[in-house]
């Protein structure tokens, strides 16, 4: 048999076995074959800046374009690597006297050249071993097996293949593309609609590997997001995340696994951008709310959270949303639960520089300790619970208390500007009496004003022109807000309890306060009578706003007022009590038990002036919105 026949025969056989074999155009006895590299165990590859990969002989393409400023290693597991190209040529005299000539080449130059050399040499060795006969098939088989085991690259000294970063992108892309192509070519049974679906209409969750069809996933996640059920946006498989196993049975590091789904994946499943955004926003909001460290903007109309590096704003491109480990309620790896700091969670940060907070919604800069507009780091400020009544809020309470009437059904405060005293609530359409707050029968509301003997008999048009209108001289006038009074007392009681606790803490402030306290005691010598009276008169038109305003700068003054509350006055705690008393003092002592009409009028006037000034000056301090005064926390 002639040589040529034997060579030709071998190539013909090979091309029958490997239809992808490409005969060489120049060499009649030459051919090229691509050998896919998909190791059975994914190959661990470490990408390092080119400089560090110095010992690895970089081939022509290993250009050192990367400035190895920061040495960042990245380990990636790759299941598919670019194929090897095997160029074979059978020389004259093969197989009897000459070995086959082979040349190996790795696309993207990912295989170290010494490894390639080693593999090439194997062709001759095999040819010798087989007793100098046709060996190409065995050689290809050998290469395939070597590829299957990842060319034993994982057994090198590093335990992984070290490559320059320059090739990372190409390799990772190749891996992903190959995986994607394989996935798309497959058929899967969707566990939800129980139907076999083509890979192209399915989606594999990246973290756990479970596969469902896109339309089922869309339907489920869309409805979960619509209903606000953010916690349910995770893998749908019943056994996912249960025993810390993934679909392929691999044990993950954590006992319970991450099942949260990245917004990028939701987009890949075909969810609308709008939906995904809603999802991300809700999730972020939940986290913010769960974090005790979060401070909120003191502007009552805003109340946005302060900017925090822990919860970066949502990027415009959702695909770049950071991979957040804290998404996984169970991994508990990093920031998910606020780290137990040395201070209790709600203690203010000590460093004055850290006190500044900026609202992410309205950009208002404020102090996270005293909740006032940012005062610079050198100002001394005192903790204030945002729920505590500020002077503005107290003024607001007082205003509401004495100038509005609440709806008996929904408590919406109403202020009459003109008209009769038969009111219909703007909010719930309840009919009621502006003077006494009674519920009225909508079918005959005027009966209330028409029946002799009733409190409001013939008073339908009292205060017709609003507060400035004529009040009757008998002191029965407008009683205002009953429910608000209750609420104010409630809030004040809470504030009182907090203050008592605070006072215990602030022992160091005590000394400075003591002198003042003595002074005040002398002043408020007989507080009991007065307090009792004050409480009894909460309904009465009282006008303490100017005092409240004076009181602003001494928030700490309230703290040195932790007397155990008087049994009766106990309810009307510090916030209300204190400024009641102040009001009394300012008026030069006790107030007559019966309202005197003139003074009432004067007070009303003062009140309105105050309110007006309010709007103009914006209450001078916290840059609060004008609406502020009418709002209650």
């Amino acid at each position, binding site marked *: 048999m002639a040589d040529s026949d034997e060579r030709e025969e071998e190539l013909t056989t090979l091309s029958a076995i490997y239809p992808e074999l490409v005969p060489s155009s120049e060499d009649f006895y030459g051919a090229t074959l691509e050998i896919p590299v998909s190791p059975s165990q994914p190959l661990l590859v470490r990408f390092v800046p080119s400089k560090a990969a110095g010992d690895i002989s970089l081939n022509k393409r290993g250009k050192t374009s990367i400035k190895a400023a920061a040495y960042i290693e990245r380990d990636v597991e790759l299941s598919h690597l670019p194929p090897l190209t095997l160029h074979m040529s059978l020389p004259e005299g093969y197989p009897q006297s000459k070995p086959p000539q082979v040349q190996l080449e790795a696309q993207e130059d990912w295989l170290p050249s010494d490894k390639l050399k080693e593999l090439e040499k194997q062709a001759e060795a095999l040819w010798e071993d087989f007793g100098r006969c046709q060996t190409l098939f065995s050689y290809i088989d050998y290469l395939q097996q070597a590829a299957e085991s990842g060319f034993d690259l994982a057994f090198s000294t590093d335990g992984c293949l070290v490559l320059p970063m320059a090739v990372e992108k190409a390799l990772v892309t190749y891996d992903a593309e190959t995986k994607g192509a394989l996935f798309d070519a497959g058929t899967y049974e969707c566990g939800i609609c*129980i139907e076999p679906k083509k890979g192209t209409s399915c989606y594999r969750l990246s973290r756990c590997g479970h596969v469902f069809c896109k339309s089922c996933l869309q339907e489920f996640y869309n409805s979960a997001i619509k209903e606000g059920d953010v916690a349910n946006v995770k893998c749908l498989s*019943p056994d996912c995340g249960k025993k810390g196993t993934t679909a392929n049975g691999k044990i993950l590091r954590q006992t319970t696994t991450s099942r949260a789904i990245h917004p990028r994946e939701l987009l890949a499943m075909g969810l609308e951008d709008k939906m995904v955004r809603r999802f991300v926003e809700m999730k972020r909001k939940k986290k913010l709310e769960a974090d005790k460290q979060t401070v909120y903007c003191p502007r009552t109309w805003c109340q946005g959270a302060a900017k925090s590096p822990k919860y970066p704003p949502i990027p415009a491109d959702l695909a770049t949303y950071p991979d957040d480990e804290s998404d996984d309620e169970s991994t508990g790896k990093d920031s998910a639960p606020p780290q137990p700091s040395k201070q209790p969670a709600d203690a203010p940060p000590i460093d004055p520089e850290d006190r500044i907070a900026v609202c992410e919604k309205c950009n208002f800069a404020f102090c996270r300790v005293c909740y006032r507009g940012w005062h610079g780091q050198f100002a001394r400020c005192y903790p204030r619970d945002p729920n505590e009544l500020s002077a503005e809020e107290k003024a607001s309470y007082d205003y509401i208390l004495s100038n509005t009437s609440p709806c008996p059904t929904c408590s919406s405060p109403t202020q009459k500007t003109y008209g009769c005293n038969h009111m219909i609530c703007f909010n719930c359409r309840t009919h009621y009496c502006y003077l006494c707050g009674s519920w009225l029968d909508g079918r005959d509301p005027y009966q209330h004003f028409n029946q002799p003997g009733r409190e409001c008999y013939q008073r339908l048009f009292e205060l017709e022109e609003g507060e400035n209108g004529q009040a009757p001289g008998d002191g029965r006038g407008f009683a205002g807000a009953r429910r608000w009074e209750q609420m104010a007392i409630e809030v004040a009681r809470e504030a009182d309890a907090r203050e008592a606790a605070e006072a215990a803490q602030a022992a160091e402030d005590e000394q400075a306060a003591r002198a003042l306290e003595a002074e005040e005691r002398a002043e408020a010598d007989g507080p009991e009578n007065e307090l009792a009276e004050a409480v009894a008169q909460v309904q009465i038109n009282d006008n303490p706003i100017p005092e409240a305003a004076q009181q602003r700068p001494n928030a700490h003054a309230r703290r040195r007022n932790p007397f155990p509350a008087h049994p009766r006055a106990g309810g009307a705690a510090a916030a209300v009590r204190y400024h009641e008393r102040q009001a009394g003092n300012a008026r030069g002592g006790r107030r007559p038990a019966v309202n005197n009409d003139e003074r009432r009028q004067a007070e009303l006037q003062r009140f309105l002036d105050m309110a007006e000034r309010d709007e103009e000056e914006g209450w001078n301090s916290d840059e609060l919105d004008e609406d502020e005064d009418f709002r209650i926390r």
Partner: protein
Amino acid sequence: MAANKRIMKELAEINNNPLQGCTIKLAKEDDLNNWDVTMDGPPESPYAGGKFNIQIVLPKEYPFKPPVLTFKTKIYHPNVTNDDKGAMCLGMLRADEWKPPNKIVDVLKLVRAVLAAPQPDDAVEAGIANEFKTDRKAFDKTAQDWVKKYAK
């Protein structure tokens, strides 16, 4: 529509491959969302010999929402409410634990397992659960009595 298709598939699957001790049919021919199940009490349990009628209502959102399961036959069991509803709410049947890939077959398997081995720590009837834990004999007896009375 997709849901109907799935229910039909499930029904076909369960008819071709019936679950031991269960007969399943639709309560009404034209209503796929209403299943009528008759389950034999598992042998070796106090419910042995009983035939329990269970109604399964598949919500409109099925399989995204769990099926609702009720015992039409009165049963003395810590995990089934002892009223005219006979409701059962356990494990995968809970709204927050339900996963769409779960099937009715799985639900029925669970029911059978719970009949064979009540879960007193997850009970809806605390009294029965307590008896089950402390006085097993009395529990077994009442359960058997009820089987005779209601489940024959």
